């Protein structure tokens, strides 16, 4: 119940700050671009849109939200209430998940893109959105201002996006299999491409492991720097 209230509050906050309007405009533009592209480019374009923007939007926004809440000393008063830290964090990542899912769904509907194996695809999209927001939270816990957050998170953001080179066929190394983004790209690509069951199972396991590690890390950092700041 507390989680639902926190979630509702986060969604309302995002709505009030124009996230939904911004993504409405972007979604419409993405749909138009997909419709204008030649048939052979629609799938790759959709995957790149989902990978670089729609699934990653939590990574982009979470820093400023946590900074604003910290700047207004909101977090300190928040943790005096019965709200648990894990509920606070879950509400953050789930609210971004909702925005990601709604725009991804609308883009695919508007661009009339679908495919077989939707279950793998949906799992990939959901878990990459969760993982991206968690990555953002790791840096948001200690950032001092927005530019600080971006500079710190940008390097990691670029680094973990490297497997896109393998997706584009430019460069590949077995090391990429450690990256969560490799798994994301495989699961998103099941929409159009054929992958062996072992590869899909590897991707699911990879994302679950990353999700667990990052959740624990984020919890520990927030506990130390946001809930009990020195």
């Amino acid at each position, binding site marked *: 119940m507390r989680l639902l209230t926190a979630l509702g509050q986060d969604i309302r906050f995002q709505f009030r700050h124009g996230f939904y309007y911004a993504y409405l405009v972007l979604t419409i533009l993405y749909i138009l671009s997909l419709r204008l592209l030649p048939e052979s480019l629609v799938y790759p374009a959709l995957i790149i849109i989902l990978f670089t923007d729609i699934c990653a939007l939590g990574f982009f926004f979470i820093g*400023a939200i946590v900074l604003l809440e910290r700047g207004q000393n909101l977090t300190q008063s928040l943790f005096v209430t019965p709200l648990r830290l894990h509920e606070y964090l879950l509400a953050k990542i789930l609210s971004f998940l909702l925005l990601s899912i709604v725009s991804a769904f609308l883009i695919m509907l508007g661009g009339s893109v679908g495919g077989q194996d939707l279950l793998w695809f949906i799992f990939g999209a959901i878990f990459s959105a969760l993982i991206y927001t968690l990555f953002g939270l790791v840096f948001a816990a200690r950032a001092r201002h927005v530019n600080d957050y971006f500079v710190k998170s940008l390097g990691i953001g670029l680094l973990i996006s490297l497997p896109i080179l393998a997706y584009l066929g430019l460069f590949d190394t077995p090391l990429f299999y450690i990256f969560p983004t490799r798994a994301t790209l495989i699961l998103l690509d099941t929409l159009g491409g054929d992958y062996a069951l072992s590869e899909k199972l590897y991707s699911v396991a990879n994302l679950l492991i990353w999700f667990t590690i990052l959740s624990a890390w984020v919890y520990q950092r927030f506990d130390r720097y946001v809930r009990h700041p020195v």
Partner: protein
Amino acid sequence: MSGILSEMKTPVSVLARGDLKLIVRDSTLVMALFGPIAITCLIFFLPSIEALVLSKISFDLTPYRSFIVVFLSLIPGMLFAMIYGFIILDERDEDVIDFISITPLRKRGYLTYKLIMPMLLSAGFFLFIIFASSLIQFNPVHAMGVSIMVAIEAAIGTLFLVAFSENKVEGLAFSKVLGIMYLAIPLVFFWTSGWHWLSAFLPPFWIAKAFVHSQMSSAWIWSDLFFGMVVHIGVLIFFLRVFLRKR
């Protein structure tokens, strides 16, 4: 007498010294240069990237070279606009602007200073990218004209972020929308239909037009520079009014 004069500090020098201290103490802003420098490197390696793409996935990028160079040469401007926009938003959230507005510098002086930095940086990066990489031939007189538009565009970006948003979170949502402005560049390059003129109200439209006409040695470049300047200054004044009207 001269001693007294040199001891007198102008508001701008105090502000600049404050920013310099901030930059030295806080490595963030030095690291913020990373984005624009990465883009510059990308342009310098463009011929190798084209060769790699051709050999790996047999796709020839060379016909798109001028589009890629124009597009990438404007990205540092957008990044500087965002960096300074977020500095202003952070300072507004922390009420720094309210304190400065009662000093002799006033809000206008503060804003002028915060806008001139992204303007100089983005025009500098633009000219550097175009002439140091020499990937495309660009008439220096035309380039100077375009670089003025690039500078104004950075101020437009910064003002866009701060004029409409209440805090940094909204500023971030607006920065997503800011990116849409650059959609005008692919429209000019690839949309052969006359409908692409619909995007003429977007400032980058005129930069792309000027590039295309300068490459073709067409006399239309002068009208692009003229109307481009009119559009840029018009948009700038509009955003400036919105920002100054805001409390």
